[in-house]
């Protein structure tokens, strides 16, 4: 059960699904699926449509199409620098987190997978400890550490702890993948005149694109959606990523639901678009930690 992504395209391996179900069964299946799909989608559609209504209409007609399409709700947000700065901050923080996670975790995992040294097993278990504890257990001392390092209210103050807490999973995924690089390839590269570092660069990394993508997706999505870390580390609003920005916005316009809904819609829009565009990679990436870990 390795590649969840392939699931979508390939024939289902689940045995009961070999024959086409009969009509009554199909009715039951589709009925159930449509009900659940409605429960999932109605809140989302209501939100998107709500952003196109006036407050008054929202009150009498929360779902259903707007009678007057209030495109201005969306337009105002799209033309505000606030929205774009927020997304930009999120992008910067997530990008830095992803790049650092990939570099640091891949190097460590490579060493753990290919070099025998005293304490290697201990070190691996040390990193795996990171999988066991939620960030919250240490959030206050973490805050004080970041403050003492002078990183409070800086992007790095958010990025570094995020990288550190993502390392356990990233190293685990990388190491399991790197271990499967055939040993003979390593011998061959050595005879060809390579050392560990050049082998990492010329052979391991080019061969590891799938796992690099997986780890990158996990790191990026976790950072993109993270709320607690920037909440604690950042003070100035112009550095806020979108989960913080959206809460601030909601605080400002708390009863102007139509604006808040438009804002929510626009902030989750990038996620939804990217999800449907790259669903194969994202589904496999986000479940990889579970399945391959």
């Amino acid at each position, binding site marked *: 059960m390795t590649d969840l992504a392939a699931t979508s395209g390939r024939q289902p391996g689940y045995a009961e699904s070999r024959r086409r179900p009969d009509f009554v069964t199909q009715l039951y299946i589709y009925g159930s699926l449509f009900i659940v799909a409605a429960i999932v989608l109605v809140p989302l559609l209501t939100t998107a449509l709500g952003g196109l209504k006036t407050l008054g209409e929202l009150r009498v007609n929360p779902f259903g199409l707007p009678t007057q399409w209030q495109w201005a709700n969306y337009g105002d947000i799209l033309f505000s620098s606030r929205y774009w700065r927020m997304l930009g901050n999120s992008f910067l923080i997530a990008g830095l987190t992803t790049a650092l996670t990939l570099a640091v975790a891949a190097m460590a995992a490579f060493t753990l997978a290919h070099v025998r040294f005293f304490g290697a097993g201990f070190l691996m278990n040390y990193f795996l400890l990171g999988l066991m504890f939620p960030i919250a257990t240490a959030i206050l001392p973490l805050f004080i550490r970041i403050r003492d390092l002078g990183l409070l209210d800086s992007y790095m103050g958010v990025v570094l702890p995020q990288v550190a807490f993502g390392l356990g999973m990233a190293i685990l995924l990388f190491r399991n993948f790197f271990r499967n690089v*055939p040993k003979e390839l390593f011998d*061959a590269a*050595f*005879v*060809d*005149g390579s050392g560990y570092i050049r082998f990492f660069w010329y052979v391991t990394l*080019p*061969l590891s694109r799938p796992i690099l993508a997986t780890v990158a997706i996990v790191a990026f999505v976790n950072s993109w959606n993270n709320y607690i870390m920037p909440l604690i580390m950042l003070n100035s609003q112009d550095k806020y990523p979108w989960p913080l920005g959206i809460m601030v916005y909601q605080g400002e316009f708390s009863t102007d639901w139509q604006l808040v809904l438009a804002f929510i819609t626009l902030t989750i829009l990038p996620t939804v678009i990217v999800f449907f565009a790259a669903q194969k990679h994202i589904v496999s990436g986000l479940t990889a930690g579970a399945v391959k870990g």
Partner: protein
Amino acid sequence: MARIALQSVRKSFGYHPVLHGVSIDIEDGEFVILVGPSGCGKSTLLRMIAGLEEVTAGDIRIGDRVVNDLAPKERDIAMVFQNYALYPHMTVAENMAFSLKLAGAPKAEKDAAVGRAAEILGLAPLLGRYPKELSGGQRQRVAMGRAIVRDPSVFLFDEPLSNLDAKLRVQMRGEIKSLHQRLKTTMVYVTHDQIEAMTMADRIVVMNGGRVEQIGRPLDLYETPANLFVASFIGSPSMNLIEGEVARGDGRPLFRTTDGLALPLPDGTNAAPGRRLVYGVRPEHVAPAAEADADATATIELVEPTGAETQVQMRLGEHLATGTFRDWPIGRPGERIGLRLQRDKIHLFDQETGERLDAARPRTAGAAGRAA
């Protein structure tokens, strides 16, 4: 091109010794094959020559240098691996050029070297392909091409044909041999297949349990195996071996077994009566004979015709024996058959030590390689 000299080379993994002191001298331009059952240490020895394993004790010399502490790339060797070990993300040309790229060679030099190797092996049309687009034989050839590109003074082969099907294996055997004749470079080749060793090698090193059992030219090993292990390992089907002791017959000594067989000893045998020996004769040196000429009579158990010859398994006293017969009306299972043994092809070994027992024939040099 270079000589290789191994002197009392030992290897242990932790406290577990796998090589107990191996000494081999390989001449410049020689094709030497290390052969033995799996776990005998032959691959480890090859990897030590390559620099992929550390040397626990002893010296390895390539040319005039002791290379114990040199990295693989400093040893002027190239290696072909069992699973080819081609880099999957590089094209054939990139695979072949990788060592030169690491060494920082200019593009023109890389292209020239790759072109030359591709021409030798007929790989030119495949240069742009990736390993996964190649057949097993083609991959094998690319692995050899990668070795040729380095223009090394020694080629090392680690069971390179074991992943190929039987037909391709025979073909590649020929190609490797002709490659050697063309390049005239020293080659060391590891295999567990004694037929591969017999057909390709200038000299064979038979290894067992981390020791060298015998070193010699293929036919020397076949005709004068230095001990029981070599006798049973080389040759197919393997030699018939029967335990017993020297006894005094009517005038001339005989070989007598506990189940009452009496077999002739070769002329000039000077073993004292009562000495416990192992008597060996290859299936191809056993022939059917009329009752009067027969040295022994056996019961046929199994007849396996292979076309050119027929292998027959027989019960000889309490022993099972094999004979390889040509054009003789062989009987059916259960029938009796007279056997005559070719006198000058009989091998005798000491039961205690397993060592060969005829001082009459010269021992091959390599038997001394078996370390104390």
